[in-house]
């Protein structure tokens, strides 16, 4: 991706206008819908079941959240909705059609829980934002139980003006309803005194020709007054943070904008903030997310306020809209040149963002940890004592669960309970100072799981913490976890809060450090109660004291390995991943810049002592939340979240560039690897391999194998290490005759082999498909995400494999070329670095 002068590109205009996007999902009874991505100032048509429902409705500005259009009649399940835009004399095609659903299909326990966003709520506040809404629902706000504002037919993130302004110490909640089906109330916020003095608001850079500006640094619920060249344009209420304002006329270079904000009448307004309108020449290029070949859209990540985005493919306009997503005339093909500019009024950015599509560029989709359906109740539990290896240990901890309302000891959520018992997840901390309540350290994870409908239990293992070490300590932890499972089994029979609420056929475990080793063995211990099915195990930075035996089996497995772990320095979870034989899949996250302790809120110190680059604690929590929730949701609830683990999609607001994934589907066809000890000279399909121009050997990729390549491998598998003798050395692995590939992907785990000297740049290779006619189509590893640089730990830097996905669509096979007779690896880099390969699969 590069910024290039727009003028040099000789971009060719066409009369193509991108279709807008109908906001999904749409549900029955909605009284409004949202249209996104249209040109600023466009008019919108909406069609329902083939008949025009709305015609020529002014859309206004597409930012920040599209146009919310009120409907003459509520939607019904099965309705098919589409939209188009008209702008600058052009008419777009119709959008992708959206079929209206019954919300109880997706939310059987009622509409999701509204969120007051942004929070907190201040005394004298006049407007509040409410998020997590179903489009077109009704939403209202109460202060001390009295309704103070309501919107019928809401946007997903809706602002609500409140009357009167909030008083001090009022309890504010948001409520929603769809089809007479009420949501749970939002979290309650007590209004607090606003900041005094108020912060000075700001205005984002504004450019000549703009008719929309963005005001920032606003206080929640404030009123702000905007002035242009000293003349007031009026007063607005805001939910805070930032506010987009439509102006009556385009701005001119040098115009002066100023803004002040006010809260309580007795307090002074803020100091004025402002900006001077910049000339057209200052308008920068927009920022764009990587484009995946085959996609028919471009996503802009940053544009000027009120701008139109234009996309050119091979210098011909192929898309135009208001973002953030701009649909294109045709899918982007490998080799296409994509240029993106933005236009404000008549001003076109003098720089264009130019890029080529990548074979694999996963889109940022949704946050798998953000499903917010229920209030969260919590309580401590005490199951008495249990004797484990002669020690009398307390069976205790805390439990978070979906509740009627937030707080300690709240009743279990009745609607959720009525639908049947819910899956459980038990968490176990590791060894730490016994005076610290380590079991409280995962409350953020428990809360996230409970609000989406799981029961999340954190087991207090403190009586096993301290200075006792050895594998026996791990067995004891496993038995203590199982004792808590047994206790909850008993509660499920008799407890007033939890009776018949718990589904022991769907149990997950999460363990950290010594707890991470314990959860690997707990399901196989005799102490595990009968009729309890552990389906999912998340092993976070696990130790290896030797408590495990043979491959972890019987459950889906995920391990998270902090690359900057200063305690469990060997990242022993890599061995568990390699050995694991799960029913369906296993997942590994090797997280650069992550230390051991920052996943637990009670473990305050960075265990690597700051000697290694370490991301902030919130990023640690974010990684565990996002990928842990994706894992448990997939296994225990059947949700569509596995794409985050395979790398097909990315979560938002997460340091994904630091997270290196390995993933394996058990039932995929393994061409070579998987500890079959036969990379060379035959592959798993019993086909003879061949090599030329490189030295390839089969090695134990571990610390202990007799035939290891070097000491940089910390897992426990067998694979191939290849080093090119000359550029373009190749390794060929044949497939059975008449192997047809079309929509599949070729997956391979690969690591840059650390040889004692840290590489100055990432290396790579090419993967080729040899067609039945003998021609070979190659795709470079850089085109599918690239071979990661190792995480630099000096002399103990690890060669840690991660999975690269090569979609067959990237190989540009012709219709008659689907028959593939071999997969080839070509080491084509001049750096001559050795690469380790394992688990070559067709998925």
């Amino acid at each position, binding site marked *: 991706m590069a910024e290039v002068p727009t003028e040099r590109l000789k971009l060719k205009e066409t009369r193509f206008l991108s279709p807008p996007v109908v906001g999904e999902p749409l549900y029955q009874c909605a009284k409004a819908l949202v249209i996104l991505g249209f040109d600023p100032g466009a008019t919108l048509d909406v069609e329902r079941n083939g008949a025009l429902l709305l015609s020529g409705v002014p859309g206004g500005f597409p930012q920040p959240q599209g146009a919310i259009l009120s409907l003459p009649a509520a939607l019904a399940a099965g309705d098919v909705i589409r939209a188009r835009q008209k702008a600058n004399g052009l008419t777009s095609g119709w959008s992708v059609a959206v079929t209206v659903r019954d919300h109880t299909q997706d939310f059987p326990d009622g509409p999701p829980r509204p969120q007051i966003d942004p929070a907190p709520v201040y005394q004298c506040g006049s407007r509040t934002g409410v998020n997590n809404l179903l489009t077109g629902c009704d939403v209202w706000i109460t202060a001390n139980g009295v309704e103070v504002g309501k919107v019928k037919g809401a946007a997903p993130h809706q602002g609500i003006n409140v009357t009167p302004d909030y008083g001090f110490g009022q309890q504010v909640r948001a409520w929603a309803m769809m089809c007479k089906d009420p949501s749970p109330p939002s979290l309650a916020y007590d209004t607090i005194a606003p900041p005094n003095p108020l912060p000075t608001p700001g205005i984002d850079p504004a450019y000549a020709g703009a008719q929309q500006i963005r005001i920032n640094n606003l206080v929640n619920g404030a009123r702000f007054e905007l002035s242009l060249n000293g003349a007031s344009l009026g007063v607005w209420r805001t939910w805070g943070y930032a506010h987009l304002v439509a102006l009556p006329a385009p701005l001119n270079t040098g115009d002066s904008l100023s803004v002040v904000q006010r809260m309580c009448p007795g307090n002074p307004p803020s100091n004025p903030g402002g900006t001077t309108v910049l000339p057209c020449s200052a308008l920068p290029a927009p920022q764009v997310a990587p484009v995946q070949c085959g996609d028919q859209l471009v996503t802009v990540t940053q544009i000027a306020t009120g701008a139109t985005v234009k996309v050119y493919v091979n210098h011909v306009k192929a898309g135009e809209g208001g973002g953030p997503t701009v649909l294109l005339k045709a899918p982007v093909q490998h080799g296409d040149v994509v240029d993106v500019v933005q236009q404000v009024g008549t001003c076109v950015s003098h720089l264009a963002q130019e890029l080529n599509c990548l074979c694999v560029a996963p889109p940022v989709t949704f946050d798998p940890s953000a499903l917010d359906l229920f209030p969260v109740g919590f309580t401590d539990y005490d199951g008495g004592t249990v004797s484990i*290896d*002669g020690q009398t240990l307390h069976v205790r901890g805390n439990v978070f669960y979906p509740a009627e309302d937030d707080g300690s000891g709240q009743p279990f959520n009745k609607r959720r309970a009525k639908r049947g018992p819910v899956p459980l997840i038990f968490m176990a901390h*590791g*060894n*730490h*100072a*016994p005076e610290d309540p380590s079991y409280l350290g995962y409350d953020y994870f428990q809360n996230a799981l409970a609000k989406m409908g799981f029961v999340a239990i954190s087991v207090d293992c403190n009586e096993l*913490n*301290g*200075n*006792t*070490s*050895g*594998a*026996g300590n*791990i*067995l004891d932890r496993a038995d203590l976890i199982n004792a808590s499972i047994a206790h909850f089994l008993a509660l499920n029979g008799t407890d007033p809060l939890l009776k018949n609420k718990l589904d022991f056929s769907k149990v997950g475990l999460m363990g950290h*450090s*010594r707890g991470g080793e314990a959860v690997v*063995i707990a399901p196989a211990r005799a102490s595990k109660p009968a009729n309890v099915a552990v389906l999912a195990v998340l092993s976070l*930075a696990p*130790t*290896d*004291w*030797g*408590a*495990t*035996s*043979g491959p972890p089996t019987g459950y889906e497995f995920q391990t998270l390995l902090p690359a900057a772990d*200063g*305690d*469990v*320095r*060997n990242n*022993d979870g890599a061995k568990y991943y390699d050995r694991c034989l799960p029913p369906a899949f296993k997942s590994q996250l090797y997280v650069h810049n992550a230390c*051991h302790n920052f996943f637990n809120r009670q473990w*305050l*110190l*960075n*265990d*690597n*002592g*700051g*000697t290694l680059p370490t991301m902030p604690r919130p990023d640690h929590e974010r990684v565990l939340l996002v990928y842990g929730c994706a894992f448990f949701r997939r296994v225990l609830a059947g949700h569509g979240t596995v794409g985050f683990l395979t790398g097909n999609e990315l979560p938002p607001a997460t340091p994904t560039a630091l997270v290196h994934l390995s993933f394996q589907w058990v039932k995929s066809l393994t061409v070579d690897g998987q500890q079959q000890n036969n990379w060379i000279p035959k592959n798993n399909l019993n086909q003879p391999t061949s090599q030329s121009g490189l030295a390839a050997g089969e090695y134990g990729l571990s*610390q*202990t194998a007799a035939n290891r390549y070097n000491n940089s491998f*910390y897992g426990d598998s067998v694979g191939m290490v290849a080093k090119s003798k000359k550029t373009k050395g190749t390794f060929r692995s044949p497939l059975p005759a008449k192997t047809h590939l079309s929509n599949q992907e070729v997956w391979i785990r690969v690591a840059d082999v650390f040889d004692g000297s840290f590489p100055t740049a990432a290396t790579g290779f090419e993967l080729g498909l040899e067609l039945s006619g003998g021609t070979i189509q190659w795709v470079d590893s850089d085109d599918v995400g690239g071979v990661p640089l190792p995480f630099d730990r000096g002399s103990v830097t690890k060669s840690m494999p991660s999975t690269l996905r090569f979609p067959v669509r990237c190989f540009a096979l012709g219709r008659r070329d689907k028959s593939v007779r071999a997969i080839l690896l070509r080491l084509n880099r001049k750096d001559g670095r050795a690469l380790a390969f394992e688990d070559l699969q067709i998925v």
Partner: protein
Amino acid sequence: MTLPNDAATREPPREERPISLPKLKTATARHVQQEKPRRFVTQGTEYFETDVIEIDVETDGDFAIAGTGPALFVGEVPVVDSEKLGPHRYRFFAPGSTTLPKDALLALGRAGSGTPRPEQKTKLRLQWNTAAGS
């Protein structure tokens, strides 16, 4: 008139040191017949022994309380089962059948993450305090 300028000194930095090992000062071993068999685990398999080697060590500091823990090396043989007796004093346990090399040098390392390796090597040798010592 004094201006209201505070002159508090900087807060001490948080103790963020990588996990380090204390130095070994003494190590004394003895064979013990335990009334209650002691549990040992090898590759996930539990077994119980009444004949146990106990090695009491004294160090110049404490081991960090963490996921990993102390390992005492007698020559090349690591002993990883341990508990703390008091400040700077630890007891390691090995099955009585363990062959500990005579006159081997002692070292400390960390167990619980991969194969333990001697990290803090010493010139000390194991002292046996009973005639039953091997």
